């Protein structure tokens, strides 16, 4: 009797572990705050850079995103999956958060391929995901400096063909409303992961 009860308990435990992974849409992430991204051991301040937005105007990143939950992503429009997936997944999730939350979120895309990604090209690409996403470009040097300021290895062209691909850090960086970088989101994030994290990111560390 005792043996079979322990065996049954063992099965229940194994079952719980097996189904704990991604089966429920609200499963919490693994970090101390229940997030699905990688929490930094020490939060970092926002990088200080000014680039050019898709209207051709200067965009001071710190000033423009002050107090907002900000998602910063360095990518390029000719990128086949990582970049559009991050943008598409974020856009879909943000369409479904309460307006009160949505109004306090900014998504900023910076190109790592300024040669091909002009303002109008970026605007056109971003509009397929969300017309409110900010797009930034600059000179090669400005874009490299911005990546370094954000704590990332700068991207670069991988080959010299016309259809070249660009190596780039594939993370979405999350800055909470108190203007600190707290989380890194790698490629592979799914809509359900963003949907679980955004309410926490938007409210846990409010703007000062």
């Amino acid at each position, binding site marked *: 009797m005792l043996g079979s009860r322990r065996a049954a308990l063992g099965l229940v435990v194994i079952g719980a572990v097996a189904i704990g992974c*991604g089966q429920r849409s609200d499963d919490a992430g693994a970090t101390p705050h229940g997030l699905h991204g990688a929490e930094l051991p020490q939060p970092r301040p926002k990088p200080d850079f000014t680039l050019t937005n898709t209207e051709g105007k200067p965009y001071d990143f710190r000033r423009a995103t002050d107090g907002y939950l900000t998602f910063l992503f360095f990518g390029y429009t000719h990128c086949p999956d990582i970049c*559009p*997936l991050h943008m598409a997944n974020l856009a879909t999730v943000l369409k479904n958060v309460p307006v009160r939350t949505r109004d306090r979120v900014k998504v900023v895309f910076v190109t790592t391929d300024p040669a091909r990604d002009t303002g109008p090209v970026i605007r056109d*690409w971003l509009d397929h995901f969300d017309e409110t996403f900010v797009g930034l470009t600059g000179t090669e040097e400005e874009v490299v400096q911005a990546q370094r300021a954000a704590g*990332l290895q700068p991207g670069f062209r991988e080959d010299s063909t016309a259809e070249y691909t660009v190596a780039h850090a594939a993370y979405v960086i999350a800055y909470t409303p108190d203007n600190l970088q707290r989380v890194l989101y790698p*490629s592979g*994030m799914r809509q*359900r992961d963003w949907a679980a994290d955004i309410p926490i990111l938007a409210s846990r560390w409010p703007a000062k």
Partner: protein
Amino acid sequence: MLGCGGEAPGASAAGGELGVLSVTGAYAMVAPPGPTGSAYFTITNRGDTPDTVLGVSVGGVQASMHEVRRDGDLARMAPILPRAIPAGDSLVLRPGGIHVMYSTARPAAPGDSLELVLRFALAGPLRMPVPVRPFGVE
């Protein structure tokens, strides 16, 4: 490993076979605004000799297969064909990992079907229709 990589329930995927080779879980997506897209599937070699993927085409247009490799922070893409699949082994394509990158004359739409052709050194061409899914990973 962040996230658990599970499939959304009801997501459409296709399969195909050619001798000891089988392709499962095949689907394509078109990154807005198109026509460039990506396709994913698993190729399993159930035979006892290796075979090699020589080339791939989607929708009648030659495509490429890339692998995303991490180099520090950076995601780097490198073409991987020709690629051998050892006996009893599988080659798994998934978003953010190995993927087929293709471009069709007109952008495909979710619900469309595109013909995928994988050319193997020994087995020859494996053809199968692949469903186009809406872009994104739920």
